[in-house]
């Protein structure tokens, strides 16, 4: 379970990223965060694994405060949280397998990992992770030989190899076409169902949010302005999250 307690974030230039956020996300949920550009979706997501530091409040993950974690404890917390980025963030010159294995570094000593001496079980874990996103035959290709959708699925495999309990995905499909978008979202959803991994995704397509989420959280100006089930997230609700009627280009359907 992830719990935000009075979390606020003020950027050094004075911008309020988050304003007194309180929210609980339960194990196994598939939460989609929606909101206008600049609403604070990324800030919210990245404060969970402390890629962004919050200014006040506390974030508790499975009973432990990540906000107070220092040194090794923080690394351990991060190891249990997989992250998927809009631009995949793979090392393009490395092989797919090495990219997936990089998710395992938190489990081994520094010396072992820098020499690349992963135990056999880790290779198996990495190959299994690739199998789950249907990319095992690409294990030894260079990452930049893959299409965008495939690269994003490799980054999902990296999170799986991490044996993460939570997956955070910041606009995972924003740089993909509608067809590959569906593949990537389907993979995330399937993995969420099969393993009960808590999944939090930032999306800006209204219809995608409705199609995949079990719960929708609306953010505006750093505050949570809606939190409810898909059924409750009517067009009117979206209009109020966005502060205006939903536009056609905010529907993926319109682009297909």
């Amino acid at each position: 379970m992830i719990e935000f307690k009075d979390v606020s974030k003020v950027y050094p230039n004075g911008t309020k990223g988050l304003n007194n956020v309180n929210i609980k996300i339960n194990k196994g949920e598939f939460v989609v965060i929606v909101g206008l550009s600049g609403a604070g979706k990324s800030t919210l997501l990245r404060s969970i694994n402390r890629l962004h530091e919050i200014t006040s409040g506390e974030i508790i993950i499975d009973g432990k405060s990540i906000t107070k974690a220092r040194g090794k404890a923080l690394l351990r917390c991060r190891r249990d949280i997989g992250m998927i980025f809009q631009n995949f963030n793979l090392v393009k010159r490395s092989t797919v397998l090495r990219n997936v294995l990089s998710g395992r570094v938190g489990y081994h000593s520094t010396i072992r990992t820098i020499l690349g001496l992963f135990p056999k079980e880790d290779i198996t874990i990495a190959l299994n992770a690739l199998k789950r996103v249907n990319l095992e035959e690409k294990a030894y290709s260079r990452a930049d030989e893959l299409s965008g959708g495939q690269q994003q699925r490799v980054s999902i495999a990296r999170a799986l190899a991490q044996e993460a309990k939570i997956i955070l995905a910041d606009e995972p499909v924003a740089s993909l076409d509608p067809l590959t978008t569906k593949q990537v979202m389907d993979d995330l959803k399937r993995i969420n169902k099969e393993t009960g991994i808590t999944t939090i995704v930032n999306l800006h397509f209204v219809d995608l949010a409705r199609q995949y989420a079990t719960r929708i959280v609306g953010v505006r100006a750093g505050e949570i302005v809606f939190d409810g089930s898909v059924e409750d997230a009517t067009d009117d609700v979206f209009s109020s999250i966005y502060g205006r009627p939903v536009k056609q280009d905010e529907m993926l359907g319109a682009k297909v």
Partner: protein
Amino acid sequence: MDALKKRRLSLMKRLVTLILIIIILWASSAGSEVSISSLIDGLPGMGSLFLEMLPPDWSYFSYVTDPMLETIRMAIIGTTYGAIIAIPFALLSSRNVVKWPVIYYPFRFVMNLIRTIPELLLAALFVPVLGIGDNAGIMALSVFSFGVIAKLAYEAVEAIDNGPLEAMTAVGANKIQWIFYGVVPQVIASFVSYTLYCFEINVRAAAILGYVGAGGIGLYLNNTLKLFQYQRVSTIIIYTLIVVVIIDMISNKCREKLI
């Protein structure tokens, strides 16, 4: 109307630049007492020297093979040492690896300072310390290579994609793992390429370091010149040329493969 004005202005700018270049060239050649006329006066002398160099003393080839190998060895060892020391400096000078200016500014400063010293001067400094011979040459080339490679590598590190670094932070990597999985794979090809490039420079440099007593074939070039053995001089020059061309060819092939 406006476009015409702009064109006239840019024409003016080019003209002024040209005049400036001519003035600078004229002033610096006057300052160093170089003149076209003295170059022309020297032509016959150069011609007769050239004739005296022919034919090369072919038997001398086998005699200078050992110093030639020593020259190459100096270049290899110097480049290797320099490249190894360059690695921590390149990392510690980079803003995206080390977040604190108190660290990266001093490292950059040392790096830039060392880069300004020419290799011949370095050799002249090391000869009194380490004595005449290839040790001084190796040290000079190490320091020189360090300057070249560290600077190029640091620029490569600062230009890498931030994405994989962020991803490595997110998986819970410690700083060393973060460097080995996020930074190293992105710069290793450039680093090896710069090292080979530096090696090419070093072979040339090593060939003249003997002039200041720092080992290698330069010593033989110096001696034969002093003794007016011009046929042996041409042997050394031809030998050096062949070695440099072959090494450049191999090195270039390797560098092409890296990209």
